[in-house]
């Protein structure tokens, strides 16, 4: 089972990210569940969302405490939330940041990648919603679902026009992602 945790701020699309990824897995015939940290919803407040993907049925509904992957949609959260808490030592960390990955390794992690996602989406989507570009970045470095499944999931959710724009930002994610030099890509 793959356990993925998303950290964002209300309005950035963390919950939608988890749902898009789960939908992509379900399209592939896998089993998946996605859910937010439950509570009042406020724009700008820290939000956590969770996604579990498995080949067989999943019976867990508890929050993910030891994720395989952590995706951070807003690097200012590093000052507010312990986003890498419980992340496995060989776990993957992807951060929306203009900084280099070494900025976020904290001496423990090596599978770290960054992408200057906000700059790209402001340019293409004209709004600071970084969920699809970070999912694109994830697929560049980890074999979670196929790109086709992710694109089907995005199209199903947003319709054709938004789909084309999001496809564009995902292509840019592939080019612009910065991978930590110590992370040997297989």
């Amino acid at each position, binding site marked *: 089972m793959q356990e993925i945790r998303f950290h964002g701020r209300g309005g950035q699309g963390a919950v939608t990210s*988890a749902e898009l990824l789960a939908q992509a897995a379900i399209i592939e015939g896998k089993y998946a*569940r996605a859910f937010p940290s439950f509570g009042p919803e406020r724009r700008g407040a820290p939000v956590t969302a969770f996604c579990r993907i498995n080949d067989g049925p999943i019976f867990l*509904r508890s929050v993910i405490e030891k994720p395989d992957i952590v995706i951070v949609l807003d690097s200012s959260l590093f000052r507010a939330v312990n986003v890498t808490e419980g992340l496995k030592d060989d776990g993957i960390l992807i951060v929306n940041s203009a900084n280099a990955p070494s900025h976020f390794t904290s001496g423990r992690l090596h599978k770290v990648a960054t992408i200057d996602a906000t700059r790209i989406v402001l340019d293409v989507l004209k709004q600071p919603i970084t969920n699809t570009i970070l999912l694109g970045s994830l697929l560049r470095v980890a074999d979670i679902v196929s790109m086709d499944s992710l694109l089907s999931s995005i199209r199903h959710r947003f319709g054709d026009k938004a789909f084309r724009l999001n496809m564009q930002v995902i292509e840019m994610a592939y080019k612009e992602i910065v991978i930590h030099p110590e992370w040997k890509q297989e």
Partner: protein
Amino acid sequence: MGKYLGMEVSFAAAEAVKLCNVDVVAAYPITPQTHIVERLSQFVADGELDAEFVPVESEHSALSLCVGSQAAGARSFTCTSSQGLALMSEIVYIVPALRLPIVMILANRSLSGPLSIWNDHSDVMSVRDCGWIQLFVENGQEVFDHVIIAYKIAENHNVLLPVMINMDGFILSHMFEPIKLMEQEDVDAYLPPYQPKFVLHPDKPVTMGAYAMPALFTEAKKAQEEALLASYPHILQAWKSWEKVSGRSYHPVETFCSEDAETLFITMGSLGETAGEAVRVLRGQGKKVGLLKLRLWRPFPFHDFYKAIGNAQRLIVLDRAVSYGGPGGPVAGEIRSALYNMENRPQVINFVAGLGGREVSVESFLEMFISSIEGKASGYQLFGVRG
């Protein structure tokens, strides 16, 4: 039959309500409400569901409106949570007495105070004796299925009672998971158009909600209880026909690894999945542990329950609500009563857990099991209270 599609469970519930082609949806549209109503209002606005959508000013009004529309012969739906049910409760008791087959989803959340918006069963337990048929579901597919099944049961002329579907708030209502939807024609074949037995109509006047003097009130209550008890075989029948349509089968009491079990967990709602995981772990250690999940809460399925407990010596009963100053949680109280006349009745250990959104994990169940067999837990206790 369709394939699995990921969706929020609240949206799946709304899809089911749409497939039932309801005539009226009345609901208080903001907190404590779920996305079910948001989605239904969109279906109506987009012309996908030909229904009157009434965003009323309170839950009391929501159910009052459904009483009127259902009495006039319209298939009606509402849903709420926690404080909303509390505000609605005056009307909740009236619906079964009027024999109106309204279906309501209750996304179970705690009653204040302290103010909490999170999941437990204190809301439904506050109307335990309201006379509705009350069902609990464990996952999104069960929510979807039971909306359709609920109308089938409720509108049966041998039943004519409202049905309340209890789904855990947040844990289910906000969960995105794979759901298999149904084709409209399959639902239509299962659930024919609503044929009311009595309708409020000026051409053929009838009285609904009459006044009962002391000389009649007891008889009216006896008749109401008989009606609820008599619904049992029709509930089973509705599940059986659903199995033919969907391939999914449901029972009043669901069992898992219970046949040779010495210890049984008893749960209602989404905790069944978590308890099932704990049973798998304990079975892996060679422990004779099983699980009973109460799906039908009213009418209480006594016979299914006796059959399901078999020769178990110990029942670990989970409650999700406190009965302050009472004999334990409401579920355990009922189970102890049900066992009283048995000669060799099992020991009942009652944990009240998962109040106001407190997580109950697989490890929690393992802890409950160990403290029960070691004799550290007995009778009734709140689980996981910090010192």
